[in-house]
């Protein structure tokens, strides 16, 4: 097989599903669900194959592909064109995110079969488009392509939220669209400025050009670009105070979409910050590292304290996501191997954990039609499995060792304590608060007296167990044997550290 085609296949294979779905009549409910689910398998298989390729000790650069695509005209007629190539490539870091994406997508498709109650055809078509977008942006090797895939994720998500969400779905969808639209707009300006000033958007080349002092870009200019990037990805991450859209999405979107949203889409922010912020503007990143660390701590604590007083479990999880993304920022701000690796771990780990949590919330909501903590309680009796996994997921989320959350959190703190011990110390309050709010919420739902009789309520069963078990296993695997993540990362880490100057 031609390895260069693998990534393109990986990215675009869900489109086949869309075409098949378009042909299927609306009434074929089971076939539609089956196709929707099956179409997520090729990317999964391919991404695992790529991982296997890596494990076999072969180079990931075998997969790189670069084809001329768009040539914008230059400033002068004789000037070379401003070329944007179709470039896909994969590094260890990207590989992890691609695997994460394909795993969570497959599981979310499974979840959708359960949670989505109407118009499966439209749902799965949009869903598969979303999957393509996510896979594309994690493998894109130039910023324009990244941006294109980035925006490709926006539209399906808008519809998925707006059509299949809960009561205030439209508001949430618009909130999502406008905030992310704003973020992507800022990103686009940066990308276009870079293209206009350097003639390329290839990430590797940009890195060299920006680092090259002979290219006439002033330090302030670069700093401005970096801050713009920070804002662009800050919306996505989200960084306080750009977070309010995300709360609405978490509460209003259907569970299978939130699995993707919280599991993958939020991670784009972190990915962008690492890949572009840190990768292209290492010096500027350094300049703002303290600010980033403080922002990270603010995120961590802000999310944690607010999660503590929420009455809706989905809101708790939403604020918890803000809080956990704070750890990502803190890890990055440390600018050492431990911190960055911790941040990347946190990205993957939180992806898995929040996907799991939201799947469980979906199950809960489906059975009890509420996610208000006050309306639940004593669930451990009627739904022991759900309650048990909920507790386990909460434990993973609060950073219990043996699960992925701990390794990430630990490394992030390890990294930050080296450079900014005081900021890190303040941040460590977050570790306590995480336990406080998660236990309050989860125990409030599962322990104690039952608010009402849950006897007739069904526990997790059948296929529902698959996503739960798979995610749980992955969470524990990473927690027990972190090398599954850390070994592919080493090369990426080295490159980043080189950029940061050791």
């Amino acid at each position: 097989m031609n390895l260069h085609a693998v990534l393109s296949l990986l990215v675009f294979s869900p489109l086949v599903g869309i075409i098949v779905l378009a042909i299927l009549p609306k009434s074929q409910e089971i076939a539609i669900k089956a196709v929707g689910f099956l179409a997520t398998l090729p990317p999964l298989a391919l991404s695992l194959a790529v991982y296997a390729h890596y494990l076999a000790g072969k180079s990931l650069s075998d997969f790189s592909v670069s084809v001329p695509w768009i040539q914008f005209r230059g400033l002068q007629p004789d000037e070379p064109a401003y070329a944007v190539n179709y470039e896909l490539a994969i590094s260890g870091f990207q590989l992890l995110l691609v695997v994460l994406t394909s795993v969570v997508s497959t599981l979310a498709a499974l979840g959708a079969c359960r949670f989505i109650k109407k118009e499966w055809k439209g749902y799965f078509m949009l869903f598969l488009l979303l999957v393509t977008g996510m896979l594309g942006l994690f493998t894109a090797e130039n910023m324009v392509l990244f941006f294109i895939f980035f925006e490709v994720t926006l539209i399906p998500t808008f519809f998925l939220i707006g059509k299949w969400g809960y009561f205030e779905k439209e508001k949430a969808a618009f909130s999502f669209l406008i905030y992310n639209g704003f973020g992507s707009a800022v990103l686009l300006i940066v990308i276009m400025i870079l293209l206009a000033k350097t003639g390329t958007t290839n990430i590797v080349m940009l890195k060299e050009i920006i680092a090259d002092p002979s290219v006439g870009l002033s330090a302030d200019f670069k700093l401005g670009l970096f801050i713009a990037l920070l804002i662009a990805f800050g919306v996505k991450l989200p960084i306080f105070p750009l977070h309010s859209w995300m709360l609405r999405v978490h509460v209003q979107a259907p569970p299978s979409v939130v699995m993707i949203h919280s599991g993958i889409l939020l991670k784009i922010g972190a990915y962008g910050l690492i890949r572009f912020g840190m990768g292209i503007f290492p010096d500027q990143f350094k300049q703002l590292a303290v600010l980033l660390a403080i922002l990270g701590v603010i995120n961590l604590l802000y999310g944690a304290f607010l999660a503590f007083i929420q009455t809706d479990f989905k809101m708790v999880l939403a604020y918890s996501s803000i809080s956990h993304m704070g750890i990502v920022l803190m890890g990055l701000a440390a600018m050492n191997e431990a911190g960055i690796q911790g941040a990347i771990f946190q990205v993957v780990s939180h992806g898995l954990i929040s996907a799991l949590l939201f799947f469980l919330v979906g199950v809960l909501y489906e059975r009890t039609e509420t996610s208000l903590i006050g309306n639940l309680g004593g669930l451990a009796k009627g739904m022991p499995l759900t309650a048990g996994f909920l507790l386990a997921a909460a434990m993973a989320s609060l950073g219990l060792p043996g699960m992925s959350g701990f390794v990430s959190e630990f490394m992030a703190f390890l990294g930050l304590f080296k450079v900014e011990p005081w900021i890190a110390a303040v941040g460590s309050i977050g570790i306590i608060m995480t336990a406080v709010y998660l236990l309050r919420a989860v125990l409030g739902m599962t322990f104690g007296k039952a608010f009402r009789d849950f006897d007739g309520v069904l526990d997790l069963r059948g296929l529902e167990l698959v996503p739960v078990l798979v995610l749980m296993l992955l969470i524990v695997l990473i927690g027990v044997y972190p090398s599954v993540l850390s070994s592919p990362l080493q090369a990426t880490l080295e490159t980043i550290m080189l950029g940061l100057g050791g």
Partner: protein
Amino acid sequence: MSLESFQQLNWSIMTPEFLILGVIAILVLMDLFMPKHMDRKMIGWIGIVAILAAMVATASMVGGPVESILHDTFRIDSFALAFKLLLLGGGALVLFLAVSYEPKDGVERYQAEFYYLFMTALLGAMLMTSSGDLITLYIGLELLSIPSYILAGIRKFHSQSNESAMKYVINGSISSAITLFGMSYVYGLTGTTNLLDMASKLATLSDSNHVYLLTLAFLMIVVGLGFKLAAAPFHMWAPDVYQGAPTPVTAFLSVVSKTAGFVIVIRILLTVFGFAATDGQGSIPILYNMQNYLAVIAAATMIIGNVVALKQTDIKRLFAYSSIAHAGYLLVAFTALTPNMFYSIWFYLLAYLLMNLGAFAIIQVVTEKAGSTKITEFAGLYRRSPVLAVSMGILLISLAGFPGTAGFIGKLNIFLGALYAEPGHYLLASIMIAATVVSYFYYFGIMTQIFFRPAADNSKFNIPFGIVVVLLVAVVGSVLFGILPNIAFDFLQNNLDIIADFFK
């Protein structure tokens, strides 16, 4: 000039214009002699064929040298060909819409006029692209405008249509008077109406009084033509006129007429003022000197267009504001004044033509059926006709400038132009992108109606053939040029070297 030499002129370069003109004449006669009861749709179809033939004729000239006749009053250069193709394409699509236009108290009685007036207006627009002389430019402009006035009011018994036409006439006439007044000063300072001659004369301008006068003329021309483009603050007629005019006419105004507006803007401003010196030979040209004024107009246009669109409840009005906003984007490209400008404007106009005409096709179908132009008529379109809904979705996404569509590439092109100019127009680009974000509100507001809201009635649509054609072209084109824009770029770059030709 003797008759022989008159005959020896290379008239063949006017083939497309003659084709259209001839067919118009034939159609007028046909209309006259055709029995009253006969369906006049045929006239529309003949018109379409004529336009397509003219397109072929134009396309066959692509790649040829610059030629001009009648002392440059008619010239064929790459610029003319490129934009003429756009105009003809847009004209053909508008006629497709027109032959499918059957509103309740409609245009049955003047159906034939409806078609050939379109063609007349189109002829005016075509003349503009090929003019190298102020007089012919002005004639072209009026040949475009006057039939447009009639077209806007062609639903004689529809008071909104009348009102729309009246407003259009008044505003259009004022604007052409202002333009003409500006032109008269330019003529006065040069003593010629030939654009290239003017340019060469003005290139050595150094008397500050003359420069001042010329700049005033520049402003007047900009303002006058600003009406045509519907640039703020000269845009206010557009919503009313767009709303009242029959839908194909609205489509025509927003696409063909706007394209023609940009054609004349580029022709006059760039040729004349791009060389008119401010302080003797070699000094900075007036056009560059006034870049900031253009930037302000562009910014105001984008902001006003997008912001006011938020509050609209009428779909045609909304699209009027949307088209104002798009004019703003195009002005950004013009303001940047880079050689890339031709390409970015051309491509954006192409994208805009496709997506806007497609959108108007759907608007026509939906509003005609509902008998109302409220946005809420789109509610539940997804249930009633998934094909229309999805097409509209794609076109709206393109209008909003999301990737995968021609609208995105067009915007990218404009950005690039604004940013790699020295000094870069960062603020303008930022405003443009912020305005784009604001536009998501209303474009996706329509989507909300289409996809999320339940339908008031569940009757299906039957989509006329003309609409199908327009939709097909629009959707396929929007997506194709969004994914493989190089098809268009290469075509332009390899065949039409606009920059080299423009000043020859």
